[in-house]
């Protein structure tokens, strides 16, 4: 298996660094899937993650000026690697004002992802910083658990308010209760509710707008003001919101009543999907 890629554009490098920082905040360990056209950061819904799963996809063409990979085999031309996300984001920190970034799969004592950053220097000689990030290659038989999660038909689909506002609301709510109710309707209304013995707090977001639903049949027989709700662990939502340092280009949320909430964000051309299951 081989992989080598090079990023030379400053804006692409910064974007890639931001994505990596976001992933580091969302998942301690994650899977990196490399395929001929895409890179994916994956977190599958194991109990260890609390049932949360994540699927982040980016088109390699939008970032890499050079990209070569050779997967497991001709039919399965993909590479699945497991790594500690923070290692990658820290290695990319040095790339802030870099001339070029090279990333490749190597085997030095143990398999590594080698990130090599060429920095600007005042003189003719260049400064090169290299990081060898240890990784684990994931065997072929485990690949099936790491596929793109199926998104069930949502009951309500709604655009999210400004994430920073949502985050500060959720942060305060966390101190009161760890059980949060997320509900939304087709009238552009989203509520975040917590309930304890002593107090109930609800934050209402209005006029958010709803994206057009795929299945038109269900929309006829449902009152648009009817709320679809799901009970989730507030800390998982907070972790998701904390990872969003930059406001996304597009953000929407799909609620499947009493099953899960699915967030779908678009950061320029990078798509992030985050699934939080309902509390049982």
């Amino acid at each position, binding site marked *: 298996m081989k992989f080598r890629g090079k990023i030379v554009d400053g804006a692409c490098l910064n974007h890639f660094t931001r994505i990596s920082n976001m992933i580091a905040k969302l998942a301690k360990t994650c899977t990196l899937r490399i395929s001929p056209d895409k890179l994916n950061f994956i977190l599958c819904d194991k109990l260890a993650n609390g049932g949360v799963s994540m699927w982040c996809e980016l088109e390699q063409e939008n970032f890499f000026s050079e990209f070569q990979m050779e997967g497991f085999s001709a039919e399965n031309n993909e590479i699945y690697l497991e790594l*500690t996300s923070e*290692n990658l984001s*820290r*290695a990319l*920190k*040095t790339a802030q004002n870099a001339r070029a970034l090279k990333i490749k799969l190597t085997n*030095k*004592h*143990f398999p*590594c992802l080698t990130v090599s950053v060429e*920095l600007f*220097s*005042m*003189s*003719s*000689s*260049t*400064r*090169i*910083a*290299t*990081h*060898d*990030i*240890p990784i684990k290659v994931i065997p072929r038989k485990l690949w099936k658990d790491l596929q793109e999660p199926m998104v069930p038909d949502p009951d309500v689909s709604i655009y999210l308010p400004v994430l920073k506002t949502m985050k500060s609301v959720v942060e305060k709510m966390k101190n009161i209760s760890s059980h949060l109710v997320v509900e939304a309707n087709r009238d552009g209304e989203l509520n975040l509710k917590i309930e304890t013995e002593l107090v109930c707090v609800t934050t209402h977001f209005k006029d958010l707008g709803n994206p057009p639903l795929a299945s038109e049949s269900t929309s006829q027989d449902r009152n648009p003001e009817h709320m679809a709700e799901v009970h989730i662990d507030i800390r998982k939502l907070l972790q998701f919101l904390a990872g969003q340092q930059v406001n996304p280009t597009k953000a929407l949320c799909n609620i499947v009543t009493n099953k899960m909430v699915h967030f779908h964000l678009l950061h320029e051309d990078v798509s992030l999907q985050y699934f939080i299951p309902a509390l049982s």
Partner: protein
Amino acid sequence: MNENEHDTTLNLKCKLGMKSILPIFRCLNSLERNIEKCKIFTRSDKCKVVIQFFYRHGIKRTHNICFEESQPLQVIFDKNVCTNTLMIQPRLLADAIVLFTSSQEEVTLAVTPLNFCLKSSNEESMDLSNAVYSEMFVGSDDFDFFQIGMNTEITFCFKELKGILTFSEVTHAPISIYFDFPGKPLALSIDDMLVEANFILATLADEPSRASSPQSLCLSQKRKRSDLIKKKAGKNVTGQTLECISRKAAPRRIYPKETLTNISALENCGSPGMKRANGDISEVSESSVSNTEEVPGSRCLRKFSCMFFGAVSSDQQEHFNHPFDSLARASDSEEDMNNGRFSLS
């Protein structure tokens, strides 16, 4: 420090708690805006250092801080005879530091006549398969001064380096680095108009018999000397902070026998008070601080008050049965810490 009133020169070596001083000088912005004058003097009768701030409208704020007299340790180390000397803007090194995580204890510096490399210590990255190995190459052109006598790789404490670089960003002077072979100390020197600081760090010795990864203990003692103030006001203001002391380690190995005789010569130099700790190390208290630049080979090493002890391999440890207090964490339990303590006062 001097007594202002009587205009006599007294030499006072004392220690002040950082926790006491830091809050006084905390809000730099408000200090610069509101304070007209700051006066620092001692009251040795009460063992206090008095810091007075004179604000506008006649407001005066006074802080009294107790001090402890101390006899700082000195080490014999002449940076000017080191084979390898580098001078670099601290900003460039600070960029390199970003590479390493704070969990990294040691960092290795490797030089050849053409280039310079700062990298994760091999000891650590081999043990933990999860650790990221990082290295950064800096070309010799990026240095203000680059003189390498021999190819070397030395390993020393990362935390100390980080601290020193943070300190150096305040001054705008370049950092000079002096070193030799592994085991011999490494000196980092900053010489600004107002401040001169020298940090001596221990380096790991290159012993092939080393089984596990020893820890390098870095002990540094910072010292500031305000030349400008001295020239203008005719006063001599010095402060010293002794940060940490060694464990039993290699003074004997780092300093050849003849150095110990230098110490006795220093004793005759008229320096008041000297202690010998069971023959392992001598402690020489400083004589009056002079204004002059250090003369290479000078016996009275006034500029360096620092210490450091390199980690040693286990076979060397039986030589030393009198460990010092260790303020740095030693993870080897074979250190016999109960064999007596080295007193500084």
